[in-house]
């Protein structure tokens, strides 16, 4: 009988908990145990970046974390990258504006990665924007529109006066 561990996380501001085996990856914890299927699982060994979530604000690959190891942490998933009233957040809106996605499978990882990136670097150049997304793979877009989305998101944040 596999021993279960109680894992309590604050996910997108809401306290959540589940009893899971130690080997439960954070990606599966979010999807299977909490039903938050916005986080996508691509390669499941840390290469593609689709499963990226923010742990205490810092982007990490949720497929490379055991849920039990981050017990007590605050997590932000793509579902939490919205505006204060639940409307699309700056990065989400930018992807819509710039056609930054096609099939959308990789998008959650991009949105979380870019959200955290812009918090630290609110005015990236095009080169910096490209570098910022270098750890995420997209098989559809050829990245051009994702780079444009990073720059557009920075613009939306400036227009909205997001504190930086």
């Amino acid at each position, binding site marked *: 009988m596999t*021993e279960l561990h109680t894992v309590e996380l604050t996910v997108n501001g809401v306290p959540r908990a589940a009893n899971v085996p130690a*080997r439960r990856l954070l990606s599966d914890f979010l999807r299977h145990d909490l039903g938050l299927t916005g986080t996508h699982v691509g390669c499941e060994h*840390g290469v593609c970046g689709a499963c990226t979530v923010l742990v205490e604000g810092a982007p990490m*690959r949720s497929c490379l974390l055991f849920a039990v190891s981050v017990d007590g942490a605050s997590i932000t998933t793509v579902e939490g990258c919205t505006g204060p009233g639940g409307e699309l957040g700056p990065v989400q809106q930018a992807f819509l504006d710039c056609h930054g996605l096609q099939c959308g499978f990789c998008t959650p990882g991009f949105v979380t990665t870019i959200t955290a990136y812009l918090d630290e670097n609110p005015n990236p150049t095009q080169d910096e924007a490209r*570098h910022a997304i270098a*750890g995420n793979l997209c098989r559809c877009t050829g990245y051009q529109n994702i780079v444009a989305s990073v720059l557009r998101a920075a613009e939306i944040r400036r227009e909205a006066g997001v504190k930086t």
Partner: protein
Amino acid sequence: MKPPPFVYHRPRDVDEALDTLAEIGSDGKILAGGQSLVPLMSMRLAAPAHLIDINRLSELAGIRTGHDGVEVGAIVRHAQLERDDAAFATQPLLRQALQFVAHPTVRNRGTSVGSLAHADPAGELTAVLALLGGRMTLRSTDGERTVAAADFFLGPLESAVKPTDLATSAFFPALAPRTGAAWTEVSRRNGDYAICGVGALVTLDDDRRVASAKVGLISVGPTPVVADLSEPLTGQPADAAVFDEAAQLIQDTLDPEPDIHATAEYRRHLAGVLTARALLEATNRAVEATK
């Protein structure tokens, strides 16, 4: 794939971690950042029966920077060390090389000491520790010992860390006066494992000639390769022509393995080009340091 099942241990302090390690021996692995271990488990290349999670051991969380160098605790993340201004001021090679370790997302979780203990021949920090002549501190229930970098890396993915040891810290000596450091590497894609990477230290004399020079290379052997170039270079002008010759010397001593990413010949070629480049960049920084 999913990682195989394991028994999870979360010790409250280092002593408890050491007791647990002593009890379970080679069936156990330390879980720090897990950025190498978890994919290995998911690919079923590793199946430890026990994991000992040290992520909450605050006694291992510090970066201590003194005049002699930088001591990095076992759960310090790459990103934390990369951003540490005091560590950068004392030993700039740390930040220079850390910027090439995987992607920022991985650096946010992966630990510097963990990557040293993992001893991947493509791991940047292995060559940084070896080039600087740093050391590792290991603890077990038998006590504490330090292992010099030269004795620490034993083979691919094999270090002097025994199953009952916990690597508690790594020590990187400070940059010497009149010295510049540089790291450069080539990988197929941004953030990938380096096909070859080279770190360099160049010290200049009063006439801005080479007083000493040393390089450390990754991905060209089972362990990091360190070459002291002081013999051929001391007293020589620190310029591209001289460094190209030194790079040739290094190329001739290397015997890299071919793999799917690069032939042995290409790796050797890169080792030469990158050695010359790193020496030149380190020289430019040394010139700045002597101003």
